[in-house]
């Protein structure tokens, strides 16, 4: 249902006055099948989030193509990909002033009626009903905003849901139910699910593990066979503090 064909994301290499280029995503080919659960993992700076953002259209494709349900979406803007059925849950969700969870849910679902919104929250389950009129602002805790982000993504009932580090800021007791929720959505709606994570709980839940290193998939397959490679790549344990590709200051 989603095909990445010879996909590149290239940035200018700025160091020491040399004008060069660097491939953050370096020629990826992969076919994601409908209704499967994929976990993308790999070391810091390997290109996980960059790839997820390429699929959503947040990063522009430098070369190659992305085909979604038979249609080339490589040049579609973010909002048209959303309308085509792709939803994206950000690692660090945006905070607003004067925009509530209700507003985000309404935009994501097209529903404004109070009763239906409450039904959606109940169905999604991760946020209490009292969250509805919470402002999605700087006052929310990291866990609260992440729950809102996840709920908004699930509420949109996408064909393809991408979750970038969904457990960041979420308490340990919520991670298990969160995995169950993603699996339930997949079972009920055949939602193709891509999770970018280092968390073993998500890796264990996935049908397919994709290990990315230096912008290329170095492994695709089940968890069991991936373990030696994961140990070799010494997957970062500082992901809670990691600010993603934009932050150069790696803590390792």
């Amino acid at each position, binding site marked *: 249902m989603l095909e990445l064909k010879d996909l590149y994301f290239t940035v200018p290499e700025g160091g020491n006055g040399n004008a060069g280029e660097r491939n953050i995503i370096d020629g990826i080919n992969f076919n994601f099948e409908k209704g499967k659960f994929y976990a993308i993992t790999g070391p810091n700076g390997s290109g996980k989030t960059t790839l997820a953002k390429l699929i959503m259209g947040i990063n522009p494709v430098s070369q190659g193509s992305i085909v979604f349900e038979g249609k080339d979406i490589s040049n579609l*803007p*973010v*909002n048209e990909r*959303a309308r085509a059925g792709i939803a994206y849950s950000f690692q660090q969700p945006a905070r607003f002033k004067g925009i509530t969870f209700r507003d985000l849910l309404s935009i994501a679902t097209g529903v404004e009626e109070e009763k239906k919104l409450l039904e959606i929250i109940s169905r999604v389950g991760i946020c209490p009903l009292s969250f509805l009129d919470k402002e999605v602002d700087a006052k929310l805790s990291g866990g609260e905003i992440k729950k809102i982000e996840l709920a908004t993504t699930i509420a949109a009932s996408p064909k393809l849901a991408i979750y970038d580090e969904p457990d960041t800021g979420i308490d340990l007791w919520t991670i298990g139910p969160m995995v169950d929720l993603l699996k339930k959505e997949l079972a009920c709606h055949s939602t193709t699910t891509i999770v970018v994570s280092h968390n073993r709980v998500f890796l264990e839940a996935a049908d397919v593990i994709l290990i990315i290193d230096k912008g290329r998939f170095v492994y695709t397959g089940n968890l069991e066979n991936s373990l030696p490679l994961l140990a070799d790549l010494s997957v970062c344990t500082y992901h809670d503090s990691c600010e993603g590709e934009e932050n150069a200051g790696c803590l390792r």
Partner: protein
Amino acid sequence: MLDALDKKLLKTVADLEDLPKGAYNIRKNGKLLHRQKSANINIETNADGTGIIVTIKPGTKNESVHIPVILNQAGLYDVVYNSFIIGEGAEVTIIAGCGIHCGTADPEGHAGIHDFQVGRKAKVTYVEKHFAMGEGRGRRTLNPTTKIFLAQGAAAEMELTQIGGVDEADRLNEATLGPDSLLLITERVLTDGEQTAVSTNNIVLQGANSRANMISRSVMKGNSKQTFYATMEALNKCFGHIECDAIIMDNGTNETMPSLKAKHPDAELTHEASIGKIASDQLTKLMSLGLTYDQAVNRIIQGFLK
């Protein structure tokens, strides 16, 4: 009687479809158009005939008074002095606002000079909207002044909004807070084109345990310019906070000058200020939910000024 234009202006500035229930005083082109008192709210013209005195009886609960002003007379600059005396323990909502319709090349303007005496443990909510429209190119000016005195334990919540169409605005808000009193001011100003708006706020925290929170939200479109001054002066053990955020669109400019003066060792004063364009992560988020770029911008601005 209210004509169609009056009704449109009243709907925009006071959310009124027709004459309101309860007490009201509607002023049009510098003259009284309609007035109604209620059992607990008295409205009378002041001694020199330059405005009104609104008196709320002590203990009045859940009542409101509308005092909108509408202007559509070319060349008129209407100045009005209104006083509000809110009795002990009363709880009242005052809905003010000025709507200008400018149909010619002549300027039109209004200056509403309002002073509030809020009695012990009384609570007032003051909602003021300013708006101008019309096909005329005459300059539309609104220069309001609000002076507020809060007695012990009194509370005032003020929502001051300038929605659009006002070429020039110079606002002055002054407040003096007694012991245990509370003041919340939220000001929202949207300017466009070549419009300018200046807001000057002087808040004196005089009484022990008084609290004040001033929030300012500004959006500058086109080549418009806004200037925001806010001074909080603490003369006692108190708490004060200023939060001023400005979003620049197009070629708008903004100057923001929050100032804190602690003249008592137990004063706690804080401020946060930001000026900038719409954050790209906010735009990306809303676009990832299906909105176009323009829809996302509108939604963010709408929320910001809500």
